[in-house]
């Protein structure tokens, strides 16, 4: 089986610091993968490289066999890599429905019309489908800035879905949520993944969530791939445990 | 257009001296105002659109002080300190309320003050042109340079402005206060966490920027007529200078101001109708090639 997203030898340096160090990872079509690692492991940088926000210094990023490294963000988006952000990036004064309709129109390149009326019916119905998919119908007419934090993050994901991505990258989907909200969020994400059948990659700190839903886990540390495997394999991996607990030091004299 | 006249001037030492000295005072006045704009912008990240009005206040304060005391030194102080205090009050009670609001609100607060200050000046000093005349201290024979003559006041103004520039540069570059200011410009929060009252730093910087505008006004008083609304032209010119030099860059403002001053001065001979156009053209070219200005850093 060929990989949907195949990353080979990816490199990124900031000044003297190597933030992404020869990362090689494959993501199979329809897989659900968690990326974990201690702070400064280079997880968000890794996403920024895939989505074209940062230009890699070396290596390849292949989506369905086509190398997309070095392309602009909008080209990469159009090719089918969507992304939701760590801090929800939304349109504060749009209602949920309008925001999604506008996103669908943008994706379909139908925003240039000045003669027709917003919302165009088929875009609006697509927007409602997406709302139903992520469970935002109940707040469809609410301006985004009045949404709860969790719903804002859902909307951010929904905006990414409007682009009909083959691969969806979620950067800490549960960041800043209370315990219950987290599980609601993660259930939605999981349902979304199973219903749409896309390739989902998420960064997450909450280990309970990671081990509960991820099929495979990739551990980054200092910009390198430290380990990859099933939850069980990762749980018993000494190197990973050490990465989290830190190396022993000599007792200071 | 009169390229022959310009060529003729450029080949006559006397004309060069006259035009350069005239250009230098234009440039130095613009620089003093622009340096205030750029200093405030560099640290506080707001553009003080009222800075031209501050310059105007400086002119009027100086006029009044001169009328009362007959001393030009006192009127310089009155312009600088009066406007400086006004600037601090303006920053504390008005501008600081809209630091976190969007640009529109900042713009409107400034616009309101432009309206108010022009009207206040008209009420207090009247709407007619007022002149200070050349202070007695400078009623001296012109200085002969090369083949031309430079009015002593022009020489004083230029030297004085350069001195101020050096002093401000030293204050910002060498003193602990200056180091704190530069640190606050980069990372206000960290400076605050170190126990420094950054609101006070902001007020002081706004005050210093205002002092520079007031000083420019007081320096201009002997060579410019005072009239309500006079601040606007210099606001635009100082903006052009800040854009060309790079927002936040004092050195850039200094060089660009001299350039603009010389263009205006020589332009009145060679292309009197197009001097403004040339200024804007230069600004447009600079923006096209380097949007952050000649010496500007990348905007955050």
């Amino acid at each position, binding site marked *: 089986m060929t990989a949907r997203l195949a990353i080979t030898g990816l490199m990124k340096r900031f000044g*003297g*610091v190597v933030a992404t160090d020869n990362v090689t990872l494959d993501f199979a079509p329809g897989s659900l993968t968690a990326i*974990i690692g*201690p*702070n*400064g492991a280079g997880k968000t940088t890794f996403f920024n490289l895939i989505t074209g926000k940062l230009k890699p210094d070396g290596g390849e990023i292949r989506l369905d066999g086509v190398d997309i490294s070095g392309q602009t963000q909008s080209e990469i988006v159009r090719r089918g890599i969507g992304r939701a952000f760590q801090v929800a990036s939304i349109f504060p004064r749009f209602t949920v429905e309008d925001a999604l309709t506008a996103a669908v129109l943008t994706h379909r390149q139908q925003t240039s019309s000045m003669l027709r009326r917003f919302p165009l019916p088929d875009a609006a119905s697509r927007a409602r489908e997406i709302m139903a998919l992520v469970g935002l119908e109940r707040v469809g007419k609410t301006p985004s800035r009045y*949404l*709860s*934090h969790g719903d*804002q993050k859902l909307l951010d994901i929904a905006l990414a879905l409007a682009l009909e991505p083959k691969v969806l990258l979620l950067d*800490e989907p549960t*960041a*800043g*949520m*209370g*315990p219950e909200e*987290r599980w609601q969020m993660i259930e939605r994400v999981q349902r979304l993944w199973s219903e749409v059948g896309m390739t989902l990659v998420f960064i997450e*700190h*909450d*280990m309970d969530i*990671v*081990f509960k839903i991820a099929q495979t886990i990739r*551990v980054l540390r*200092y910009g390198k791939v430290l380990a990859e495997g099933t939850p069980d394999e*990762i*749980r018993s*991996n000494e190197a*990973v*445990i050490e990465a*989290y*607990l*830190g*190396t*022993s*030091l*000599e*007792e*200071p*004299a | 257009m009169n390229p022959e006249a310009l060529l003729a001037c450029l080949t006559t030492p006397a004309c060069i001296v006259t035009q350069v000295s005239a250009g230098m005072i234009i440039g130095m006045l613009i620089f003093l105002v622009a340096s205030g704009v750029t200093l405030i912008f560099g640290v506080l990240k707001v553009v003080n659109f009222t800075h031209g009005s501050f310059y105007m206040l400086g002119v009027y304060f100086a006029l009044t002080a001169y009328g009362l005391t007959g001393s030009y030194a006192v009127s310089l102080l009155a312009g600088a300190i009066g406007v400086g205090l006004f600037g601090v009050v303006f920053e504390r009670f008005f501008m600081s309320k809209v630091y976190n609001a969007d640009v529109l609100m900042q713009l409107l607060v400034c616009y309101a003050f432009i309206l108010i200050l022009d009207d206040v000046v008209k009420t207090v000093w009247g709407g007619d042109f007022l002149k200070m005349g050349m202070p007695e201290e400078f009623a001296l024979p012109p200085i002969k340079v090369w083949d031309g003559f430079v009015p002593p006041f022009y020489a004083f103004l230029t030297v004085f402005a350069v001195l101020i520039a050096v002093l401000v540069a030293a204050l910002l570059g060498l003193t*602990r206060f200056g*180091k*704190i200011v*530069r*640190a606050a410009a*980069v*990372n206000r*929060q*960290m*400076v*605050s*966490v*170190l*126990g*420094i*009252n*950054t*609101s006070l730093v902001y007020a002081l910087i706004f005050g210093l920027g205002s002092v520079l505008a007031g000083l420019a006004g007081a320096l201009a008083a002997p060579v410019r007529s005072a009239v309500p609304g006079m601040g606007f032209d210099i606001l635009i010119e100082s903006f052009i200078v800040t854009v060309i030099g790079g927002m936040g860059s004092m050195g850039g403002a200094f060089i660009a101001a001299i350039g603009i001053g010389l263009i205006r001065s020589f332009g009145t001979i060679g292309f009197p109708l197009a001097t403004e156009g040339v200024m804007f053209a230069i600004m447009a070219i600079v923006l096209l090639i380097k949007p952050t200005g000649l010496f500007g850093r990348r905007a955050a």
Partner: protein
Amino acid sequence: MTDNAAPGAPQLSVRGIDVFYGASQILFGVDLMVERGTTVALLGRNGAGKSTTFKAIAGVVPPRSGTVSMNGQDITGLAPYRIARRGIGYVPEDRQIFPEHSVEDNLTIAAKPGLDGQVHWTLERIWKVFPALQSMRTRMGGRLSGGEQQMLTIARALMGNPDVVLLDEPSEGLAPIIVTQIAKLIGELRAEGVTILLAEQNMHFCIAVASSVAIIDKGQIVYRGTVAELKQNQEITKRYLAV
């Protein structure tokens, strides 16, 4: 400040603080006590709320409810500079060196007397404790290595002669040998009588330098104890710190 009087009432106490970023709640009723002269470690994985706790104490992100007090005085919600003047020195996780200031300028900007009006930390004393910094006193902050920057940030906090230093993840992203150095340094500071609240992911680092620990997970304190107790408790470390 250097008197080794018996630890009595907590010098820094945090009671039940809730902290929000916009609409999202990060901390849920966090309590912490730091007694004079001790080193307390706040352990937790990333995203657990360690940095937010520190920011709340330092006044950068004021808590929505709960109190922070220092030497018995309520400092909740004060401006950061006022909190600093009450004796709190903050070493942020991302260090926040002034990149275009020299090492020495980074330090002199921060100089202020302590609560007792005395200057315990002079440049000379800093140079003695951090000889590496002295040798690069004119170098720009932005051109230091990660470990050097970490040293500089700690030194910068000391220049304000604080009663309590908040050290946010001093070992993060540093090579093991540097981490050992930093641990040694913290030991020295402790010997000098500096009270330290330390945030860490690195359990071994904490064990090496701290006397007591609190573990934070998902914005709540889930464990409290001495270092010795923590060493015994494999289950807790596995659950809240490892994978």
